[in-house]
């Protein structure tokens, strides 16, 4: 019987038994940690191996980019590459993670035609409501970059109620 364990039996366990018990302990610990992150809305429950898929619709976070030089204008997705930007931001799985300086630089490296253009990055996600049952797209994380000189830009943003800012040197 699996739960018929006595102290004597525990002493007779082989090294392999301890390895197996260790693996199970790590797995359970990770699931508990994952649930803790989900309960605080810090991660997408569908990802990272916590078995939280099909608990609610996948939030499917998506990026929009705007040119904010004069009048705010949304850029067509066909005019910029965002795969590496998305990868650098861990595909938006960690919901309250700030957009990194490296991500801004990667975006500019992948889209040199947007250098010297003030930009707004808006990450939207699908939000599930239970009463009434519906899903709607809502802005979740926003950041802006503004060029001070051709080799220097400032950035600012907010995510999960936290604001951040900084300065980056840009070398094409």
């Amino acid at each position, binding site marked *: 019987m699996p739960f018929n364990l006595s102290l004597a039996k525990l002493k007779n366990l082989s090294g392999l038994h301890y390895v197996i018990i260790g693996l199970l302990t790590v797995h*359970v610990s990770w699931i508990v940690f994952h649930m803790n992150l989900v309960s605080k809305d810090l991660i997408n429950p569908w990802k990272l191996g916590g078995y939280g898929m099909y608990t609610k619709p996948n939030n499917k976070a998506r990026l929009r980019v705007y040119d904010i030089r004069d009048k705010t204008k949304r850029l067509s997705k066909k005019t910029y590459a965002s795969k590496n930007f998305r990868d650098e931001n861990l595909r938006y799985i960690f919901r309250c993670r700030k957009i990194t300086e490296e991500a801004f630089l990667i975006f500019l490296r992948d889209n040199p035609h947007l250098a010297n253009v003030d930009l707004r990055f808006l990450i939207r996600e699908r939000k599930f409501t239970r*009463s009434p049952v519906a899903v709607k797209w809502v802005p979740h994380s926003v950041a802006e970059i503004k060029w001070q000189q051709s080799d220097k830009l400032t950035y600012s943003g907010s995510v999960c109620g936290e604001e951040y800012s900084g300065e980056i040197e840009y070398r094409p």
Partner: protein
Amino acid sequence: MIAQSGFAPKFSNFLWPSENTDGSYNSGKLNRLAIMTAMLSVFFEKAGRLAKYNVEYGYEPIFLTAGMLLALPFVLVEKYSRWAILAFVLLLLPSISADWVTYANHSWLAVWTIPVSLLFVKYWDDPLFADYLRITLGVVMLAAFAQKVLAGTYWDGSYIAYLSHYGSTTERLFGFLCSDTTLQQPCGWHRFIGIFLLVWQFAVGVLLLVGIRSLLFLSVEIGFLLGAGLFADEMNFQVLNIALLCIAFRVGMSYRLFAACVVLLLVDMHGIGEFIDYAI
């Protein structure tokens, strides 16, 4: 010998291996077939991703996936079984490293189970490996139950109502039970289905942990997994689960069940919903 339950129905003959002429079972071979089926589900998932292949990704994903396929038949050969699993796991590592953030839950389950077989000299005969898989699957069931309770979307039926109205073709299976007006307040049927799923997952998790290995239980659980796979139009996870359950219950995988799993994986490449849409 297989621990045959007195309650096992006759249809289980389709699922479970029949006895050899001397009354014995070649469980080692059938367990190797089961782990190969689990690996096959991983291979199919990777092959499915190649459908979105872009030449910018280089040729590495193609070589790695082809390598996985080549390793699979050797899993069946006792002498090379562990080497084949080792090769498969090594070929899998680059994709885990590159895609860990978006790795699907069933892929993580494969990571927690398939490589562990390498720790055993004869994983196909080792009851400790079978127990490890049984407990892992029980934990996964309870984790899925706990996540659903945490979300609260099954108690009130809101997630079933959502799928019934906005889901894919197969996910709208229970749509006929309630009208559109129930989006304001999920109807009784959708609440019942949500609560039933919770109770089922909890019960299966507990029964696996306790160590129930009745073939009736296994047959019903496989039937439920197939139903869930049909509903979610996602057979990869179900085939992986079924293969691992066959080892956990120490019966191995019959050739007929293996053939059924291969068919399901092939259908899954396109999606059951697509077939239904085409037929309708």
